């Protein structure tokens, strides 16, 4: 349940942003969930709902967007996605990645040239894409 830790960061950030902008309330928070980290939306949503009670974010609408992971090889330039690497990602490995997404570099390699020097172009983790305050 480390989703709770992520939720604390999200609500804390939203409240701070609201205060900095002299807002009375936070209306909407758009949260992007990167496919690689594989955060459980339901658990995150539950934690966020608990944490926003009694804050200026209490009525905030929570919107989640999933972002597919895209990898790009630094050696040959090939781009690929999670589905192509599915076989290599066992349950245990997924759990490690869930905590620290960068660990993916220990396990995956470029499907084309085999290099392990690649970058996660999109879909790494959780971030706030948009916020509406008033």
């Amino acid at each position, binding site marked *: *349940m*480390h989703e*709770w*830790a*992520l939720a*604390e*960061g*999200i609500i*804390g*950030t939203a409240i*701070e*942003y609201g205060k900095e902008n002299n807002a009375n309330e936070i209306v909407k928070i758009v949260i992007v969930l990167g496919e690689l980290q594989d955060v459980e939306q339901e658990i995150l949503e539950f*934690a966020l709902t608990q944490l926003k009670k009694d804050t200026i974010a209490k009525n905030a609408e929570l919107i989640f967007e999933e972002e597919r992971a895209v990898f790009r090889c630094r050696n040959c330039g090939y781009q690929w996605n999670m589905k192509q690497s599915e076989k290599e990602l066992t349950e245990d490995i997924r*759990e*490690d990645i869930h*905590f*620290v*997404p*960068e*660990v993916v*570099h*220990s*396990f995956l390699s470029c499907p084309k040239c085999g290099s*392990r*020097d690649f*970058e996660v172009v999109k879909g*790494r*983790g*959780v*971030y*706030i894409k948009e*916020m509406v305050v008033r």
Partner: protein
Amino acid sequence: MDPRVKGIELKLKNVRRIIPIVSGKGGVGKSLISTTLALSLKELGFEVGLLDLDFHGASDHVILNSPISELPDEEKGVIPPVVHGIKFMSIVYYSTDKPTPLRGKEISDALIEILAITRWDQLDFLIIDMPPGLGEQLLDLIRFIPRGEFLIVSTPSPLSVNVVEKLVALLKEGNHRILGIVENMHAGNNLTEEMAERMRIKYLGEIGVCDEIDSLIGEPESIMLSDFGKNLKKVAERIVSGDRPR
């Protein structure tokens, strides 16, 4: 927006003092000093956490002889296991033995993630074993620990003293608090002490060359009884002067 910035601040909310251990160069005994300092503060009766963020040289778990095969428990975050009385967290729980070809920015991201998910709860002291050198990981990390009181480790080597001087200047430029400098492997000259005076930072003490220390790795109790441990305890006493366990 990156929710981890605020997340880290909240995770460290109930930590009274945060002491990142830095060194200009590698190989000056930063990990041994971090670990032994944490154990010393525990012996003085404080609640202590130890966090190893030295990605390439993570070795606090070896010094503590702490198993890393199982992931720490989770409950509203990650709970650091208690090892020899201190709460211990390390990047090695998640990086495996496999060589992991990470670029600077990726290492920073991994370290920041650890800071953002670890639940220390109430602590008197959190000791952070930082990446060595003056590279981008150190720079990335110190932004996330604005409350840190930096403890610098040097050796009498003119090369070490020279790099440390740059490190002090860098920390001062960023308005970071510097707790002081510890001199490891003290022998012969007073270069470190003179530099501390010149840079107006506290000289917190010296640790002599300790021949037996390598043979004590993995035996924290023996380290505490060695000259190395005794000298570090004096440093710990200087750091806590006035502080009382809660």
